[in-house]
């Protein structure tokens, strides 16, 4: 009896440490159904979410590289197809535009005591998402190849091009550069990076009128063109995952891909010689600019509006349990740059921290940005194939954007 009282006292004492908050993990009621992008870091995160949800939870997750295209339709349905969605500062805007994700203030108050303040994404004073990682595209290089040819680590795109040309001329590699140039979202993103690197603005200030057909846009396109000429001729079909395969096959010496790629590029699978030779570097600047030609991203969790409160709570508990798990962060320090409390950054966090400290622009979160991104996705291909001038391609982008924005009611 005495022992029981002590045990009760101890357990009472331990719960009182979390006064006013509930432990998120161990979900027993409600069902959890998450839509998420597909890459290794998300898989690691989802393993933690699943273990936080516990064995009794009704748990489902769908990983898809097409998550951006699925999300609006899937969450518009009532009840929504998914109870939660992993979002980024890019993909959250279409959901916000239609009010498809719910404010999380009450759930954060209940279960989010272990969150950092900067994890809470607030829009107009309400929390709509909880971020768990930061990401950015930056330069990756093969140290031995650069050393053999006496090339310094490039810090501008002009140097990247010179380095790639030198590697090609030396006959070391046929296509030494790689980037995700797949026509579609990836290609649009390359332009976004390069245009922001040149100091461009996508819209005329204070309006939804496009503003890419200018000198900065042309300069950005010309740099992309140079880079694609040093890439695999199939570049228009290669997304980030395909580029990572090229890297692991040893076909590439320089590439500009996501920091979170470290989770698969630096794991124990694949050619360990290439892994040992892989180095990360800050994202280069371009055209004499002082900001790196890349964008900052956060990845976070959001809960559907059109789902029952029970499912919303269940999903939030499991997700926020992982998003505040110091163990997750410190057991996988190189998987990405975690925003989780108590995380000690690993060796690979440098380029993202560098990008943030040098004032890199976060990916623009205008409500009409995804229409611009969509227009960039399809209208730049002909220029890269040499069938069109840069000015014509950018004029096409603006015209395609205007037609779509008019139909959507932004213009």
């Amino acid at each position, binding site marked *: 009896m005495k022992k029981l009282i002590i045990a009760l006292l101890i357990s009472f004492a331990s719960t009182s440490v979390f006064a006013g908050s509930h432990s998120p993990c161990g979900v027993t009621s409600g069902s959890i159904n998450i839509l998420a992008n597909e890459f290794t870091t998300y898989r690691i995160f989802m393993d933690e979410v699943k273990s936080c949800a516990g064995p009794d939870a009704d748990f489902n997750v769908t990983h898809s590289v097409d998550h951006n*295209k699925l999300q609006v339709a899937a969450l518009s349905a009532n009840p929504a197809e998914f109870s939660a969605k992993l979002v980024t500062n890019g993909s959250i805007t279409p959901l916000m535009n239609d009010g498809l994700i719910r404010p999380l203030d009450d759930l954060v108050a209940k279960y989010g005591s272990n969150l950092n303040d*900067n994890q809470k994404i*607030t829009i107009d004073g309400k929390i709509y998402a909880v971020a768990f990682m930061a990401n950015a595209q930056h330069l990756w290089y093969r140290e031995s190849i650069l050393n053999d040819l006496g090339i310094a680590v490039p810090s501008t795109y002009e140097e990247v091009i010179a380095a790639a040309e030198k590697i090609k001329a030396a006959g070391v590699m046929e296509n030494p550069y790689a980037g995700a140039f797949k026509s579609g979202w990836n290609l649009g993103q390359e332009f976004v990076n390069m245009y922001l690197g040149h100091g461009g603005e996508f819209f005329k200030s204070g309006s939804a009128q496009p503003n890419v057909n200018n000198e900065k846009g042309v300069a950005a396109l010309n740099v992309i063109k140079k880079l694609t000429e040093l890439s*695999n*001729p199939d570049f228009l079909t290669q997304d980030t995952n395909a580029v990572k395969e090229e890297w692991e096959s040893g076909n590439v010496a320089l590439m500009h891909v996501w920091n979170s790629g470290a989770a698969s590029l630096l794991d124990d699978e694949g050619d360990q010689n290439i892994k040992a030779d892989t180095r990360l570097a800050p994202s280069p600047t371009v055209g004499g600019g002082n900001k790196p030609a890349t964008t900052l991203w956060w990845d976070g969790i959001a809960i559907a509006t059109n789902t029952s409160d029970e499912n919303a709570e269940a999903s939030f508990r499991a997700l926020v349990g992982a998003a505040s798990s110091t163990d997750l962060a410190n057991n996988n320090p190189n998987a990405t740059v975690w925003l989780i409390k108590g995380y000690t950054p690993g060796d690979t966090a440098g380029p993202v921290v560098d990008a943030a400290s040098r004032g890199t622009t976060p990916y623009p979160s205008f409500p009409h940005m995804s229409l611009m991104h969509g227009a960039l996705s*399809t209208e730049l291909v002909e220029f890269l194939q040499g069938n069109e001038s840069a000015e014509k391609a950018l004029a*096409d982008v603006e015209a395609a954007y*205007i037609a779509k924005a008019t139909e*959507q009611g932004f213009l």
Partner: protein
Amino acid sequence: MPHKTFFWFILPTGLAMILFIGLPIVSSFFQSLHIETEQILMEVENCDPFGCKTNVRVDVEATEKLRQENPLGRFNGFGTYTDRNHLAFDEIGEAWNTSSSMIEFKDIVLNLPFYKALLFTLTFCFAVTPPVIILGFIVALSVNTLSKIIKGFIVFGTILPMIVTPLIGSLVLFWMIDSQGIIGASIQILFDDPNLSLKASSNLTWITLIIYGIWHNTPFAFVVFYAALQTVPQDPIEAAYIDGASRYQRVRYIVIPHLYPVATFIMLICLMDNFRVFEPIIGFSAEGVAQSLSWMIYQDLRNENKMLFGSAGATSMLTIIGIAFLLTPVLIRTWKEFRTER
């Protein structure tokens, strides 16, 4: 058949067609006349891990209120049909006035999304259909002469391309034509050009898609021709044989005239099928260089942002009109044949 019997006979089919084909078309047409209600924007303060700043967002409540009042959206008439992403009347008019030569005019027009897609769709249609009919006929003739024991296996093998799901079939080929795949690498060795890539140039991509289309569609023509071959009367063939007609003459003067209506049928179906070419474009990741009308609809409905229902509806209507144009000559021909037979 008396009209009354015919009416009762066709009634269930007619009702089902109105319900599942007619009404959706009418509904798409109405949707295509509308665009989204105006989006009301407001300035808000956003905070994220990279700091706080003022940004614009859509005023969901106000926009939702407008949407409740006009669930279909704003009436736009045929505005969507004539905008740049469809028939582009303004752009074509301007091109006509400003371009100095027909070639320049043609370049400007074929750079517009709808006409670009139409060009590929028609090219695909007319490049795939004739080879499919000819190849299907040759394969059917060849298989028909095989001995019974191996015929079953050969027929099965021949129709495999049709059984394979188009998306899977094109993905398999996509990896085979990769510069490290068996076909891609062989072609590089054959032409002695290590940079040759079937995926890189638009012409080669078009040719790849067309060859895929022929590969995928031939079994259909084969199956129909093969079935029709079983109905060719043996008496005239034997008579011709006795008269000393060669195999070519027997095929040319007896088999082909007998199969003529079947060929028209295959052409009809093939043209319709190929006009809505879509899966291989996705499978071959060829969106960049080859867009079809169906792909445009897909793009509108799976845009990065919201679904553009009006735009998709307009493209659907234009596709239906396109198919109608394409099939009219074939239908008129069938009708004439039908009349002469009576």
